[in-house]
């Protein structure tokens, strides 16, 4: 194996895999934006890693992935080992490689992000796992004899899948329940295909099934099966129920026609794009009546600057909108959405309007405009985040044919939680025991992610509120460790 060229980080530019040409995207190509590295490219890009004594990438990753280690394996072409190592910390690496906002996490922390161009960690991760799976590799469970324990997992989103994977590796049979017909939760229904092609989830479904994970799809707990029966039939339960209730901005006019909540918009589009039944099982029960307007030639305004907002603006582009504007109340530096996504969106023609606070949606029947005011940033609050203050007298109106509201989501805990002794916060988040940080010793005897019902664990957006896929994966993974500890000692 070739020796590492120590100046590659300087001599070789950071390069992402080739993207789908702009015109095709504007013409409605929903394929994954980024292609795949060829083997040689992947080695070269992985070889840019400095292998720092302080791997800031790994530190910046909620999963603490062994990034420098698998980059080195990738550089050496040891794809199978690299994939196995990716899986040691990350049950869903090819998915994180695609959907993580790397520029805020690993790549944002990368030493080389300071003037050199970070290592393309996400793209290499995607390459490694895709390549290994394509070569027929699957996780080796030969050393995990069945323990006879069984755990029910509610929700086949990233937290639930991650938990299932770890349990399977521990010889614990995991049965995953989901009210939808496919696995993935928001991965399946929320994230546009230009970020994550659905074949990836199909493949992961196969991998997990191959590991012995059972799936009960289209089954809703509390309707089709009772929580009590799970508690009775299984040794423990994990709740990865997500966070679907969208944050109500209480904007005047939000009920006007052509004002769309982000998630139903994305879901329905997604179903159309992949050719599923657009009238499939509705999402979370309340938005099934969404009337998806044709965006072709329309002026679209998206309110909100998070990752969901970015998904909306870029979907709108692909749906042929005449113009797409993204309205966000703070400045660009303070916007939560991934900078990489912002750049892609800009390139695709999205206009960003920073420091604008939406005040109302105007129109009689259908929306025609958004009233906004300019803002400036105030003093940092206790957490260091600077709030937007409205500049008096700066109001203006933005014409709009369609407005999409992407203000974020909050958990909506099912009613049966309390009945089973599972406490939740006032804001709906399920209460769990914390994971000790770093080297600190655990402060209580509770296992991480254990709820107030000791046989029930929870993680992901249902616990955190809407957050990243990777944090959901991390919680599912670590909850599984707690469950294994509970069941196996």
């Amino acid at each position, binding site marked *: 194996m070739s020796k590492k060229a*120590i*100046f590659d980080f300087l001599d070789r530019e950071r390069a992402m895999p080739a993207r789908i040409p702009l015109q095709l995207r504007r013409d409605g190509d929903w394929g994954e934006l980024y292609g795949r590295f060829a083997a040689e490219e992947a080695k070269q890009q992985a070889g840019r890693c400095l292998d720092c004594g*302080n791997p800031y990438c790994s530190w910046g990753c909620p999963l603490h992935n062994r990034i420098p*280690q698998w980059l080195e394996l990738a550089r050496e072409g040891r794809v199978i080992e690299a994939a196995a190592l990716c899986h*040691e910390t990350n049950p869903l690496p090819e998915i994180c490689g695609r959907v993580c906002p790397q520029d805020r996490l690993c790549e944002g922390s990368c*030493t080389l992000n300071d*003037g050199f161009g970070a290592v393309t960690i996400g793209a290499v991760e995607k390459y490694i796992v895709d390549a290994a799976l394509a070569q027929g590799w699957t996780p080796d469970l030969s050393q995990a004899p069945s323990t006879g324990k069984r755990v029910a997992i509610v929700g086949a989103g990233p937290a639930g899948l991650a938990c299932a994977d770890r349990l399977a590796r521990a010889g614990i049979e995991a049965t995953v329940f989901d009210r939808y017909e496919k696995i993935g939760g928001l991965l399946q229904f929320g994230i546009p295909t230009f970020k994550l092609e659905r074949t990836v989830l199909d493949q992961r479904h196969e991998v997990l099934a191959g590991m012995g994970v059972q799936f009960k799809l289209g089954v809703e707990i509390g309707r089709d099966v009772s929580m009590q029966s799970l508690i009775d039939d299984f040794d423990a339960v994990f709740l990865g129920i997500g966070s679907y209730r969208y944050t109500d901005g209480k904007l005047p006019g939000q009920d006007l026609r052509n004002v769309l909540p982000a998630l139903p918009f994305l879901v329905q589009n997604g179903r159309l794009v992949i050719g599923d039944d657009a009238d499939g099982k509705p999402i979370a029960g309340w938005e099934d009546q969404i009337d998806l307007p044709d965006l072709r030639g329309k002026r679209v305004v998206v309110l909100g600057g998070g990752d969901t907002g970015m998904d909306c603006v870029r979907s709108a582009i692909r749906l042929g909108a005449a113009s797409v504007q993204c309205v966000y109340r703070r400045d660009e530096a303070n916007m939560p959405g991934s900078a990489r996504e912002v750049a892609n969106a800009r390139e695709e023609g999205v206009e960003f309007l920073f420091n604008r606070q939406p005040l109302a949606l105007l129109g009689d029947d259908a929306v025609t405009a958004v009233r906004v005011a300019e803002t400036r940033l105030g003093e940092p609050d206790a957490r260091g985040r600077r709030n937007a203050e409205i500049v008096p007298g700066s109001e203006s109106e933005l014409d709009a044919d369609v407005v999409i509201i992407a203000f974020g989501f909050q958990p909506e805990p099912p009613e049966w939680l309390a009945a089973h002794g599972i406490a939740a916060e006032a804001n709906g988040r399920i209460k769990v025991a914390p994971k000790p940080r770093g*080297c600190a010793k655990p402060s209580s005897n509770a296992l991480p992610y254990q709820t107030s019902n000791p046989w029930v664990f929870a993680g992901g957006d249902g616990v955190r509120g809407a957050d990243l896929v990777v944090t959901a994966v991390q919680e599912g993974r670590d909850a599984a460790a707690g469950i294994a500890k509970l069941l196996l000692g």
Partner: protein
Amino acid sequence: MMECDQAGPDPLGLYDPRDDRDSCGFGLIAQLDDKPARATVEAALEALARMTHRGGVAADGLSGDGCGLLLKQPERFLRALAKEAGFALGSQFAAGLVFLPHDDADAARCRDTLRKALAEVQLAVAGWRTVPVDAGACGATARANMPRIEQVFAAPLIDVEGARPTPETFRRALFLARRRATQRLQDVPAFYIVSLSADSIGYKGMVLPSRLPQLYPDLQRPELESSVVVFHQRFSTNTSSRWSLAQPFRMLAHNGEINTIAGNRAWAQARAHVWRSEHLDPREFDPVIETDGSDSQSLDAMLDLLEAGGMDALKAMRILVPPATQSLEYKDADLAAFYEYYALNSEPWDGPAGIVLFDGRYAACTLDRNGLRPARWQLTKDRHFLIASEAGVWDVPAAEVLRKGKLGPGQMIAADLRDGRLLESDAIDAINRARAPYKRWLRQGMTYLHSELIDPNLAAEPFDHATLAGFQKLFQLTREEREKVLRPLAETEQEAIGSMGDDVPMATLSQQVRPLYDRFRQAFAQVTNPPIDPLREDCVMSLATQLGREGNVFADSAETVRHVHLSSPVLSQRKLRQLLAMPPYDTAYRYIELGFDAGTGIRAAIEGVCAQAEAAARDGVLLLILSDRRPRRDQLMLHALLATGAVHQHLVRNGLRCAVNLIVETGTARDPHHFACLIGYGATAVYPYLAYQTLHDLGVRGILNTKHGEVAQIGRSYRRGIRKGLLKIISKMGISTIGSYRGARLFEIVGLDREVTELCFAGTPSRIGGAGFAELQAEAEHLAKIGWDNNALPEIGGLLQFTPDGEYHQFNPDVVQALQRAVASGTREDWARYADAVNTRPPAALRDLLALDASKANAIPLDEVEPIEAIVRRFDTAAMSLGALSPEAHEALAIAMNRLGGRSNSGEGGEDPARYRSDKVSKIKQIASGRFGVTPEYLVNAEVLQIKMAQGAKPGEGGQLPGHKVNALIARLRYARPGIGLISPPPHHDIYSIEDLAQLIFDLKQVNPDALVSVKLVSHAGVGTIATGVAKAGADLITISGHDGGTGASPISSIRYAGTPWELGLSEARQGLLANGLRERVIVQADGGLKSGLDVIKAALLGAESFGFGTAPMIALGCKYLRICHLNNCATGIATQDDRLRAEHFTGLPERVENFFRGLAEEVRGYLAQLGARTLGELVGRTDLLRQVDALAATGEKIDLSLLLAGDGLAHGGHCGTPRLAAANDGLAAELDADLDLVLTNALGGSFAYPIRNTDRSIGARLSGRIARLHGDHGMRDAPIDLHFTGTAGQSFGGFLASGLRLTLEGEANDYVGKGMAGGRIVIRPPRDATFVACDTPILGNTCLYGATGGELYAAGHAGERFAVRNSGAVAVVEGVGDHCCEYMTGGVVAVLGRTGLNFGAGFTGGMAYVLDLDRDFVDRYNHELIDILRINHEGFEAHRSHLTDLLETHAALTGSVFAQRILDDFRDFLGKFWLVKPKAASIESLVDGLRRAA
């Protein structure tokens, strides 16, 4: 390093005053015809007095460290004394000096015990005499310890058998009586027999040499005549040293240190059960040789024992301190066989050693294999043989000298008084070689295991994947270790390199289960003895290991040879199998399994293994194999190191160790440190099966990038890597052969409870406790659990590289980022966040277990505390060389420190003169072993001159700057070639001993009298003793570095396993200095991983008044702790010379560094207010303000830091930054100062003449310092001053010479001539009336031109060892040289017109040499690694030919050399016998260019 004994003062905390080391001046004078004379005694006394500068003086200024004489029995004198005392002596008698207790009853008991012991061997006391003494000769310290001194006379009870004893039986009887009396009086520490012999008598005391005759008026009596006098002057590190440890001992006096002493003593104890002669059974004596006191004393006792067993001194001494024998094999097979034969049942006593001895017949001197002590001799026309540490201690007119010489490495010379002849080394070899048919015996009895060139059986039965993974977990072989430790070993055949020190918690503090080996810290040599250079001087080293039953050293016969020879103790599977299939081992080996039942308990398991081993040894088993190769699911695994230590110790105690060989078959041994631990605790050989299995797995998967590209070579490559690592580890301690390291326990344990060390590792310092058996068992349980849990993932590691869920790292991303935020913003809030991240971390350093105890303090308002400006003056940045750092980063640190009023440290890479006298100057200039760019001007542009004895990241090793970092600037400043890597030798070649350090300090103070001299040490058990010695040697400042320091590149195992926390070293140094009354004389600095104000406060409370910072200011400059410094690709532009990275990516600002130190000082102020102190100085040494907190409850480790806190608080300070007075300048140097004042000031030039003697040291250095200050290094080139001297020059003649000084010496010179010279000229020629042959005679000592950067040296005679080592610019012509000439040379020209020693040109990467090879054997004497040799007599070499002629002509003209003139006269005949020596990397053309430029 020395063992503790029952006698002597009690230890104070960590500092153990019995941890005594010495070094010294020595010599002997012998009249070959055995004619006693008063003049001989006088000459010895005079010589002794002239070596006063080599000894030590206590804090009272008068108590010397001891000196003494051993005289051939002065019969007439003793009879006179007896007569005066009122008793008569028969024809045969013995006499001796005895130290007795002052208590009369005790003294009477001692006399009586001796009388009875004499009576048992048919001897009687003829009488006792009180020796007259003048206590006024002693200082107060010595007087307080002075014993009652009497003389005893003994004679045969001739009536008993009716016959007188023969001289031999008389000698043996006296030996037995003396040893028995001593043994029976072990409870009376004051009882000590200085000597009791019919052959000699000793006098010794703790006085300065000039006062010895005053102390003992006997010595002034004219009747005192002798034909042999051995004398010695001691420099001890310990001022309350005992009278009994003054030298000579009964037979010998020793200058240097026996590095192997711990192993030697242990093996002596083991062998007492095997060694036997007709007249001697050493088992009678316990200990068999003295194990307390000094190394020299033990060596004397061993020689004594061997002679009592029937050996003569020529044989015994050569067996004890053999020369390097590897190269003997092809030169003199019979002599090689002599050494190999005795090596089967003895191991070398190794270390710097100049030994003079007298045993009644031979007055001899011998040197260690490395020639680390000087010994110059002369034979006069009246047949006096004189040898001493220095030339010039006798005034013998040149015309009276018949011959002169110097001993080379591993040589011996002896005056045989019986036959009246002088035996030189060859003659002694001839005697030894012919004693027995050793070669035949070996041929019959030695087996050499076959080793195929390619060993296919790395692992004949490879583990399957799951088994391998299980073993790896069970033995904690992590992925990190596999990729970053094992792989490089197998791929590159050497250890991997890392950077930035060790920032994980000590194993005992860790929350993780760490390998047991992590609790063992390798010992290393500093100051009192040197490390060996395993890179360039490996010709003296050996890992050869013999397997077989050890025999009786006194019984010479073929029968005792039934051994197998292994080239190293690292076994391959193939060799182990061969061995087990070979008679007699095939029926005489036994496996002892290390698995045990949890219920048994680990202590019982260890005891069980010991019992099995003992039983096996009693059954006649020859090979004991301790094995963890067959773990069982239901069992726990006993760590191989616990088993090895316990079994070895058990077998030694039971007298069985020599009967068996201990093989360890273990999965725990993977890196060189693991092997060193196992061997150091007694393993004969180690079979590291798991390392092989792991590598085999990597190999078959095609992953290894081996040197040869073949899977089959992996095992061999790995073993080579391990062997190099092992050599490095033993060399660090100054040990040359693995035999001397085996069982020597050269470690300090940090983190094991006494119950464990007693059972397994007795004799190893372990001072703070730690894990006991319960904790070790819990660890074994943990490992068994994950090992057998198929579902547990392989461990990732995280010791070298931070992993977020792994081991804690002190410089983790949080800390780094918080620090960078704090120094960028400069706000209190950000500093508080940073300080909090540091001060509330999980325990990572010992200080984290200590909390401030403000309960007794009255807090004061913050504004009453001294300002930031006063505190920052106590802060230094640690040594980081330009070379390791980019110029931008290096200068930013200097600017910041200069603005603050602290000090930055140049590191060892020189400094651009453009920075002198600017805001970029480094106020601390470092003097390291490479001496890069150390010129007089460099030295005078400093406030502090720091001698780097050791560095935290790799104590005992030299720095290395890889070639890719040596750009044009670095090369210019270091006087080297761009692109060629630079290595600093592990030792300072002018510091092999404490008195040498004193000399270097003296040199530096001569050059720059205004500077403080600082000595940088690394913490390890015994550093208190070293610090005391360093203070006595004249240092102003002592830095104690922790193991965790280090910013540059080092081998990973050095980073991880050597040195101890500074908290231990600092405390020990504080206690040692206090105990010796020296604390007020030095400033003490702590250095190593200091990060916060709280760290500073704790260091102050533990005794530091100054503080060094390495990593933290770097991080302030933008370093992200990437730990890739060694690669030159530092992405922050700090640790790199790459132009792009420096220009575009370095963002460091001095202001950030200033913010760091200000933030630190402000935090310190807060604590000062809290503790009620107005200044930091008030808190120095106030250990009462610290208390230990229990932070380790979770792991159960029982750490006790009370020893650290012991000792009175000492409040003082204020001399930070204030230079102390320099020693008074007197003698010739003062005279020169006065005479040349105006000449120097006005650069006038001129010519002057003076007599000179050996006590005139460093002549020229002081003048050069003034020149450098006034005019620069070369400012007086055009106004030369000619100085003519006549006589013998002291050490460092012409040291650090500046241009314009032209010294001519008629006579001879000692060591270090022209050391560090930058310009000028030195000419040395023999006295005009000399009759010896100049070109065959030494005229210079050792280590001349060390680190010279320019100038010229012409000397008409031989130079000593290591001539022109690290020369980087001087031109020299000499007429012969010792070993290791031109070592590490990077520039300049050396012409040798005569014989060279071995290992010429090792590490020679620049410059050139001419060597005249009349004997046609130069090809065997040069080191082939880096140089080519060429003939000069063909075409294309005209330029060199004329260059050589020019040199010869200059030499002949200046020195009057007869030989040079003869070469010139017959140049055609001689030309064909010259070699031109050049670095392989340099072309002939480039050399010619160089000549042209120089012309």
